[in-house]
């Protein structure tokens, strides 16, 4: 069982509050709100899909508990109907006391029912809790099926699972462009480890970095203006930044006789965290993106690798503790590491959701790897991948 190290006290509070206090509590953003969805009518296959997707999205958001009909402090009303290949839906949410939070209409091709439900879920999360939802986000990952390795992408609820590449070549470490429409990753499909950008929208691919030796671990700055990555062209793997087109190269680290890897940008774009083994084992360091002095931020654990930086400034990485890899969260302002996992599985390659609350990562047990969603506020881990294969290196889209 996961250790719920970050569990807040909010969960217990919500079920105990009286209706009179409900408005203050649900607007505070802490804890779960109970919502009754039974007054949303669904007709047709797409209508039913809309409603079931919306319900699951609200659960996955971490901010809602679905109430039994007639119960709960919040009531959703509306309809989702399929007709002639199209779906039209309307959803409004009010408190039992009568306060209206949101009222929206959704319409389009029936095959977009899931996407519309994701939008409705995000609208509800934002209106009621005042935070950005994650239902409309996506997750890209590497899948290894048989001898084939390729990129795959799915919605944040695991649905709409699609293969992106058909290279049957080693590929690694996908990372989203801030536009949420394209992904940079490392592929060997032309023989050597080069960095490519692949547009999920247009299904096109361009090569970004093909210097001699290693080109790997690319990560976009939050404004998309720079790319950080590891290159070995000058004699050993070091961290560099470059323009998104691969020009205007700037070297960040100078560590002869050590390996650097896995750069990732701070949300303000001014610092970069990365892995270096200059101490004799891989550890996490932070350095200004403009260069200069670095400082080691991982202090516990023999190896600390694969950092990611949340939009609200928290670092997560994978730490070797005893015989397994566990996820650790560090708020650099507070400086204390909090261990998220502790159940004997290996948790690796964490990536923050844009809500700064959820994390997607790989979980390996018995040498079999699946992708899981974790909640830093204590909800149960959810397995995202369900088809056979090895699934790892997930990255959560920024929007």
């Amino acid at each position, binding site marked *: 069982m996961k250790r719920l190290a970050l569990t807040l006290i909010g969960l217990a509070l919500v079920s105990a509050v009286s209706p009179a206090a409900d408005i203050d509590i649900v607007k505070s953003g802490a804890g779960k709100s109970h919502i009754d969805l039974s007054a949303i009518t669904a007709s047709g296959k797409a209508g039913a899909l809309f409603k079931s997707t919306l319900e699951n999205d609200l659960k996955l958001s971490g901010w809602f508990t679905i109430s039994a009909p007639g119960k709960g402090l919040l009531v959703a009303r509306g309809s989702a109907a399929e007709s002639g290949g199209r779906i039209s839906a309307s959803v409004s949410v009010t408190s039992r006391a009568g306060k209206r939070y949101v009222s929206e209409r959704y319409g389009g091709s029936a095959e977009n029912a899931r996407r519309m439900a994701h939008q409705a879920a995000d609208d509800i999360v934002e209106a009621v809790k005042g935070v950005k939802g994650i239902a409309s986000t996506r997750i890209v990952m590497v899948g290894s099926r048989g001898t084939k390795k390729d990129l795959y992408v799915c919605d944040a609820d695991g649905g709409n699972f699609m293969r992106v590449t058909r290279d049957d070549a080693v590929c690694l470490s996908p990372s989203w462009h801030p536009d949420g429409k394209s992904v940079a990753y490392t592929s060997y499909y032309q023989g050597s480890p080069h960095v490519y950008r692949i547009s999920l929208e247009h299904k096109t691919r361009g090569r970004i970095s093909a210097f001699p030796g290693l080109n790997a671990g690319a990560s976009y700055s939050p404004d998309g203006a720079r790319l950080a990555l590891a290159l070995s062209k000058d004699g050993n793997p070091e961290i560099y930044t470059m323009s998104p087109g691969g020009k205007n190269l700037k070297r960040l680290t100078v*560590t002869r006789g050590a390996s650097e890897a896995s750069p990732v940008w701070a949300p303000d774009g001014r610092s970069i965290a990365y892995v270096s083994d200059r101490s004799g084992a891989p550890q996490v360091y932070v350095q200004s993106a403009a260069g200069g002095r670095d400082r080691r931020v991982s202090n516990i654990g023999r190896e600390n690798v694969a950092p990611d930086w949340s939009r609200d400034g928290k670092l997560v990485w994978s730490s070797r503790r005893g015989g397994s890899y566990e996820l650790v969260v560090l708020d650099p302002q507070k400086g204390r590491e909090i261990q998220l996992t502790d159940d004997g599985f290996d948790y690796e390659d964490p990536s923050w959701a844009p809500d700064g609350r959820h994390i997607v990562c790989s979980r390996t047990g018995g040498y079999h790897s699946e992708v899981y969603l974790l909640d830093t506020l204590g909800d149960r881990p959810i397995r995202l991948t369900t088809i056979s294969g090895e699934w790892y290196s997930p990255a959560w889209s920024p929007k």
Partner: protein
Amino acid sequence: MFRIAVIISLAVSVCLFSGCRSRRGSQDDGVLGINTTLIGDSPLPGGDFASELTRITSVRFETVRFAYDSFKIAPSEIRKIEKVAAYMRANRTARLVAEGHCDERGSKEYNLSLGENRALAVRAYLVELGISSAHIQTKSYGEEQPADPGHNESAWRQNRRVEFALYR
């Protein structure tokens, strides 16, 4: 005799380049072990032997093995690299790609860098032995292409390696 000369030249180089850098666990840093501090002095040649030249499979070199999370060349591996150097000296048109690999433990991205450093350590030693740096490229496969697909210490030992791909 030649080997002793190399050791001396390495020791001198280390004095010149290492800046008296010491690592934890240095008790097992033999003279030959610390030659990895030389990595970083020789930019990689451009081009790609693997796509531009013809692979030679009639000549096979022994695989160089490494300790866990290390790109240090162990004394037991020196002779393997010296044999490669001897071949390269006798075959001036030959080109070499040192292919670095890791075992499955650790992050895939870090292992890419570690595999590259293993290949670079072998390359640096070949350059010390007089082989032109322009004739040796490196390629890291990280943990992506294990020689032994097993999940035990014996498989991991087989997988922490540098293989040589020869081209002309």
